[in-house]
């Protein structure tokens, strides 16, 4: 409806009427899940709580698989041993995100990307947030370190790491 033409014949529907009464029906499914993390990820999450990153090694292709898995997808065989990797790494890719999940503009941009983790094989890393960076300072190849939550706040989640921030002098 334009400003010039004020009234049209018929009954005008409000948004509430339109979405709740006339053309659609609503339903909220009862769909709740609790996924078993499994052998590999259970250990990974437990180690996160201790502030450590753990991986699995494959003695056939000699890769260190991170996050850990009980089988090597390249060799199709069981992996062999638990190995700790470091909580430092290198920015592999990044993006500066200016919108939220609803595609609304956000004031302070969010830095996201993949860190290749020191001690793990190439193409093994973690998708996460970056912090203490600016559009001018973040770059591919930047050396970073995990900024952990305090031990008592960790709950066995990838969010036990707040973000990855540039290495400080001496680290």
């Amino acid at each position, binding site marked *: 409806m334009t400003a010039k033409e004020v009234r049209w014949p018929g009954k005008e529907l409000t948004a509430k009427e339109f979405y709740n009464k006339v053309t659609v*029906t609503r*339903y909220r*499914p*009862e*769909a*709740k*899940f*609790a*996924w*078993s*993390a*499994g*052998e*590999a*990820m*259970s250990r990974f999450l437990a180690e996160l709580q201790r502030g450590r990153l753990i991986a699995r090694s494959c003695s056939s292709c000699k890769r260190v698989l991170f996050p850990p*898995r*009980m*089988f090597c*997808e*390249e*060799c*199709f065989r069981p992996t062999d041993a638990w190995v700790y990797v470091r909580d430092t790494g290198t920015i592999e890719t990044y993006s500066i995100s200016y919108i939220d999940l609803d595609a609304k503009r956000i004031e302070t941009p969010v830095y996201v990307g993949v860190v290749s983790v020191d001690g793990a094989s190439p193409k093994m890393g973690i998708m996460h947030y970056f912090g203490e960076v600016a559009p001018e300072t973040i770059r591919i190849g930047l050396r970073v370190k995990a900024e952990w939550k305090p031990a008592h706040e960790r709950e066995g989640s990838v969010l036990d790491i707040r973000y990855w921030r540039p290495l400080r002098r001496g680290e």
Partner: protein
Amino acid sequence: MRVGIVGVGVVPFRTVTPEYSWKEIMYEAAQRAYADAGVDPRADVGSFVTCAEDYWEGFGIFDEFTPDQLGAVLRPACTVTGDGIHGLAQAMMQIQAGLADVVVVEAHSKVSDLLTYAGVVHHAFDPIWNKPLGGHPYYVAGLEMDAYLRASRVGEKACAAVVAKNRQNALTNPRAAHGSKVTPEDVLASPPISAPLKDLDVAPLADTSIVLVLAAESRARKLAANPVWIRGVGWSSDSPWLETRSWTTAAYAAMAGKMAYAQAKIRNPAKEVEVAEIDDKFSYKEPQHLEALGLSKKGSTANAISRGDFDIGAKLPVNPSGGSIGCGNVIEASGLHRVAEVVLQLRGEAGQNQVDHPRTGLAASWRGIPTATGAVAVLGVGR
């Protein structure tokens, strides 16, 4: 061109599997199947078919997550949103079309990860027409059981006998999760769910993963001493309207059976099929499916059940594995489970539950409430 089943991997059914993720369960089934077939998935397998439905898994685009644990990274892979036998048909056609020589089919259940089973089943109801009524979705099984019992001479007692047989068979099947000594009287005395359906008429849920390896005829002969041939497959769906579909006759199973029998050149199924693994997600489904598939004459099924005509050792053993009632309802993996059990029977590897030298077997699946969709596979050994 014939297509043979040359590898079977079944993870023993369990009511819960908290220590393994669904990926790890799939990996176990795949390892078993590849070892059985003597194939290396990274070198020998041309294509991979998985059967899954996102709502059972609890996350979207499930097919994205299948390659690693099957050895299918950077290989042709796709997911069929249906029962395992739908996937089997897809795999068979890929081989017959010449796209691949060896194809893997997988289906699984990690239904113990789902906290609201009834909620997800109810979510499958028509959103405008049936959903607003609410209620536990098993009322559909109650309605169908009532309609079927009225239309056939099968009574609640015969259904109870099916439960007792399948639970008993499962006791000696190492892959079954729900074997037990249950008498028909126990079943009849169990609490009502949606009359006439009672608690023990319902197949309890279970977790598993099942992988089969299929191969083109010449390749199958090289891989397996005695390949199990897929002689025919069929699938069919009735109208989704609960008010319109056939309640008494499992018309979908009759159509799917007809399609599979035509390929297998089976004219008299009751005489030619020597072992059958048939959907029994609810007790009454076994006799209903037997009749629809022409394996039992309408009107005489109740007597046949009471005579023990479908027991191990009788002329047509039905669900010697224990079926879904004895092994567990493994949702989309149910059809592939039935195929796997028939394969083991035809190979003579069914252990204590072995039927006497069967050469022709049948597996028939149903996708469960509220669907009227089923699929059938006719399998055979020898020429």
